[in-house]
């Protein structure tokens, strides 16, 4: 479904991604784990068109999307839940969800999809008229995910959904990620919480200082000594 071939991405002079290649197949959950500053968010931003790769190609549903504008990438079915949620704080929960459906014109089914999001995240339904800046971190994460789902994505990019959240909330969010995946959305999940990410993923990549250093099925990586030492801690 998504194929990233040897991309290099620069932030000014900083070589943030070096010759990175990954693949995501239809209906998988693929996770990308790595430490702070390894280039995880950079990769997602490149996929969603916020950054342009200097070289290499990105193909999605057998179309080249590298260098395309963010809006046409959203239109083609890739939604990106950015790191730190980035909800529109001065707007209500419902307005945030409506913005998620910005490129859609089918008003009736937008209404239905908002109702679906409230079903998936009942707390958002309760707070629909509340400004999203007043929500708790976990609720904002749910809103950011709900907002991304409003675009009806085929591929959902999630950037550290567990960041700064209590373990119980993280568990809840991960259950919802699995549920969304079972309903037919492919997921690319970027995480520092390797334990949680590997427990729900099919396959995984490990990224270090801009390079993919390991890849395999989630199970293989869970058992790999290298990953255990670096990311899973002594359990």
């Amino acid at each position, binding site marked *: 479904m998504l194929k990233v071939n040897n991309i290099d991405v620069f932030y000014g002079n900083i070589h943030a991604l070096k010759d990175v290649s990954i693949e995501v197949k239809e209906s998988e959950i693929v996770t990308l784990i790595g430490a702070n500053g390894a280039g995880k968010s950079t990769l997602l931003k490149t996929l969603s068109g916020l950054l342009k790769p200097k070289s290499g190609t990105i193909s999605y549903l057998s179309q080249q999307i590298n260098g395309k504008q963010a809006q046409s990438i959203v239109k083609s079915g890739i939604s990106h839940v*950015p790191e730190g949620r980035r909800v*529109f704080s*001065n*707007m209500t929960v419902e307005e945030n969800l409506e*913005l998620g459906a910005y490129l859609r014109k089918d008003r009736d089914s937008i209404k239905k999809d908002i109702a679906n999001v409230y079903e998936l995240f009942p707390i958002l339904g309760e707070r629909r008229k509340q400004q999203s*800046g007043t929500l708790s971190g976990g609720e904002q994460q749910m809103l950011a995910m709900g*907002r991304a789902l409003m675009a009806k994505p085929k591929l959902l990019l999630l950037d550290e959904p567990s960041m*700064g959240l209590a373990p119980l909330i993280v568990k809840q969010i991960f259950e919802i990620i699995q549920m969304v995946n079972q309903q037919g959305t492919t997921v690319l999940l970027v995480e520092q919480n390797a334990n949680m990410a590997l427990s729900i993923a099919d396959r995984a990549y490990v990224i270090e200082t801009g390079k993919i250093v390991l890849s395999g099925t989630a199970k293989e990586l869970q058992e790999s000594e290298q990953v255990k030492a670096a990311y899973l801690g002594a359990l």
Partner: protein
Amino acid sequence: MEWIQQLVNGISVGSIYALIALGYTMVYGIIKLINFAHGDVFMLGAFIGFFAITRWDVGFLPALIISMVLCAIIGVIIERVAYKRLRSATRIAALITAIGVSFLIEYTMIFFRGASPEAYPEVLPNTSIDIFGVSISSKSILILVVTIILMILLQFIVHKTKIGKAMRAVSLDADAARLMGINVDNTISATFAIGSALAGAAGVIFGAYYTRIEPLMGVLPGLKAFIAAVLGGIGNIPGAMVGGLVLGVVETVVSAFGFSLWRDAAAFIILILILILKPSGLFGKNTREKV
């Protein structure tokens, strides 16, 4: 009952400031630029209205609409030509460019038609209306009504329409807005168009009210509208409306007490006070990031 008349006068002047201030605050909200050329768009609006009325012989409302449309186009051209390429430049570079655009507009105008003032034709009925023993000029009331309609229209656009929601989203977080599929460049252009249209309307209203327009007329009202925007909390739309009205009323009150020479000073004293006491403005708020 004279104070009621003064209050109405103050609100009329204030509503002109408010209309200009809205453009300042909207543009600042979306690209963090103080568009100092905005006062000159107001001036162009006044002249466009003047030409529409004198050459094409139209009434006040058609002139207002023609001026709004043309100013919207001018605003978008200014943004596309001068500011767009500076989007990732330092803010001071963009600010200096804005001042440059301001001079360019002023002196191009003077180059082509000279600096002499022009007398606006009487396009509004000028009678006094008695309400509870207070006589209020019909001009003031008409201006107030037109301003209120434009403000309601703006609130509707910003809160209920798709482009309005996109504008708010871009001003809150441009990258997140991109991820929603919002075309940020077009949204910024739309903001300039709407802000400049309001300045154009203010120009025609100003001309009809004060009857005297000239190429440098945008400088002082532009600065005062900027003060109004800061007073209300720059980036905040209701703040700009309230800021404009407050400024207009304060100025009128200062004049009414016989200190009309101090009128302009009063505006700048307000600016200094607000910057010392509450730099975020009356309605400005600091939102914190939640983790």
